[in-house]
């Protein structure tokens, strides 16, 4: 029983991380129907910038409380990533807005390669350790171990999701976003500045990526210029699982994917009598994803779109 609870907690934490990154994917997709492949790299930049700032702060004032130091890192990483997101949209996606669907996908892949290599030039090829600054509270729940940071990550991702949902549903900007997502042309006619709405979407998504990047890096204790690729891919799968373009869907998809991975790795061996082991964890996750999509072709919470209006 305690093992099962522990696996569930493992999955929820991992899933919350996926969800944080998936929210950024889903926002951009919802409005532009564009897979922003470079989103994982923005996450990586967030972690790297925060680590650099943390290094400097620790050098100047080594006695500062750890929480404040990390906060300083996050506060610098957010605007840097916002600027990065803004430039990505302006330089690489806006010129292609009316181009064939796959053209921006290729620029996104190109961007992803460029950002990785720029990060490699700036921060080097090594894995960088995240200093143990955050207080290490450990609790036992039903025989399972939980830490402060894990609780914080889960709570944060829920708060971020609720905040985003509120923004999209209740604010002026949110209404403009929804209008733009429905039809750019009509939104424009209604007086919505489509360009700035799209730019705002990228900027908000990138700010989320920065926070997610720092969280990932602090939780696992490391950062590396290549860390964004796999994280981005998993988060994208999570967004699709939940129904891409849907904020609650990204959250649900993220959590689900995390739990599936944890339970898959933990129990697949027992389930198959030792024939398949934890090396088939991703097979298991993809299998569930495929199964869901076969029966619900637009993801769990995605809208069913009529084939032809």
């Amino acid at each position: 029983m305690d093992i099962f609870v522990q696996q569930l907690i493992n999955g929820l934490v991992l899933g919350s991380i996926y969800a944080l990154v998936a929210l950024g994917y889903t926002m951009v997709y919802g409005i532009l129907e564009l897979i922003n492949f470079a989103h994982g790299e923005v996450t990586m930049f967030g972690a790297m910038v925060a680590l650099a700032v943390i290094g400097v702060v620790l050098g100047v004032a080594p006695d500062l409380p750890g929480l404040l130091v990390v906060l300083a890192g996050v506060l610098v990483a957010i605007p840097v990533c916002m600027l990065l997101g803004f430039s990505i949209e302006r330089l690489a996606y806006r010129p292609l807005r009316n181009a064939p669907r796959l053209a921006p996908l290729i620029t996104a892949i190109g961007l992803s390669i460029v950002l990785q290599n720029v990060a490699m030039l700036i921060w080097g090829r090594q894995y960088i350790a995240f200093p143990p600054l955050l207080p290490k509270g450990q609790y036992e729940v039903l025989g399972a171990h939980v830490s402060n940071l894990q609780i914080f990550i889960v709570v944060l991702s829920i708060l971020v999701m609720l905040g985003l949902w509120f923004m999209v549903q209740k604010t002026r900007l949110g209404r403009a976003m929804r209008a733009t997502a429905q039809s750019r042309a009509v939104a424009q006619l209604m007086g919505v500045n489509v360009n700035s709405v799209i730019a705002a979407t990228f900027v908000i998504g990138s700010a989320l990526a920065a926070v997610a990047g720092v969280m990932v890096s602090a939780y696992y204790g490391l950062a590396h210029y290549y860390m964004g690729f796999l994280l981005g891919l998993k988060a994208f799968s999570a967004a699709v699982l939940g129904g891409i373009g849907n904020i609650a869907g990204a959250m649900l998809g993220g959590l689900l994917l995390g739990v599936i991975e944890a339970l898959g790795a933990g129990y697949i061996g027992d389930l198959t009598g030792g024939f398949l082991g934890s090396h088939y964890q991703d097979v298991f996750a993809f299998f569930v994803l495929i199964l869901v999509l076969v029966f619900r072709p637009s993801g769990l919470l995605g809208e069913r779109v009529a084939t032809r209006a």
Partner: protein
Amino acid sequence: MRYSIVSALLVTLIAAGCGPKPEVGSEVIKIGSVAPLTGPQAHLGKDNENGARLAVEEINAKGLTLGGKPVKLELIGEDDQADPKTGTVVAQKLVDLGVAGVIGHLNSGTTIPASKIYFDAGIPQISPSATAIAYTAQGYKTAFRVMTNDEQQGKVLGQFAVNSMGAKKIAIIDDRTAYGQGLADEFEKAAKAAGASVVAREFTSDRATDFTAILTSIKSKNPDVVFFGGMDPQGGPMAQQMKRLGLTAKFLGGDGIQNGNFIKLAGVEAEGTVASLPGLPLDAMPGGAGFKQRFEARFGPIQVYAPYAYDAVYVLVEAMKRADSADHAKVVAELPKTDFEGVTGRIRFDAKGDTTGGAVTLYQVKNGAWVVLETVK
């Protein structure tokens, strides 16, 4: 339609034409170094290249004479992206450039297909880090390595886990790379032969950061020792997550985690971790401490395999000296006679090109540093 094909070809030719021709210099001897310099293993690749570079610079500073003429070494570092296909293209490029020998590649997956190209060209190849048994089992006279293979190291580790660490129940994790899986399999064989039982065999990948699921599963089986076949970017977080989950088994690994980076990544949770490294401790070797100092002054901290790449260059150059020539055939004929005191230990080769009698040293993290436990010969 047709003109497009022509223009397609023209573009290709122009793109291809950008490359300058290889220059031929009589006094310069080229040595190739191949490793992934981009991608997730770039840090290890650059480390190998730096190790080789330091040796080349030192040899040049001391001066080298072959066949009565002073010669200069030039290191050509190439990027194989850890991709077997790119590995063969790079290998052919080095053959075209007329290198006297190759230090590389880093991964077994690139080393094996490349070794065929070096063998066809008769060029000596010394890998500083490929551990797959298959590399030297192909019957190529040109293939050598200064690193112990999976079998040699896995055996030492397996026996150590059972006999010295007193492990009865062992859990094994590998990262599903040629290196990690190879080492873990050989470890499993040796540990079972020594009388321990393997209670869990779990797997991860070389890109993963979250191991909580497999560690939780391992925890339920109560092992004495958790063995990990893989590298420090996974080993570090794994050690942390073990402690966080309350898994108290001892953590054991191979050369992939026996480095400073592991301690940095694992933080205080690194304490007590045991890992092996082929060869003798750097500090115990004549010239070892000096190497470390010079390397770190020039390139920063050693990642893992730089000392092996450094020794590999010396082994190659010593063979050239004995042959008094950089001629491929003569050097290949001299290499099996190698008996060299390198910074990683005494290097000799068996008939296949593997190191023989190479010692394996076991280390443990104490107070944030690797301390020698014992050396197994």
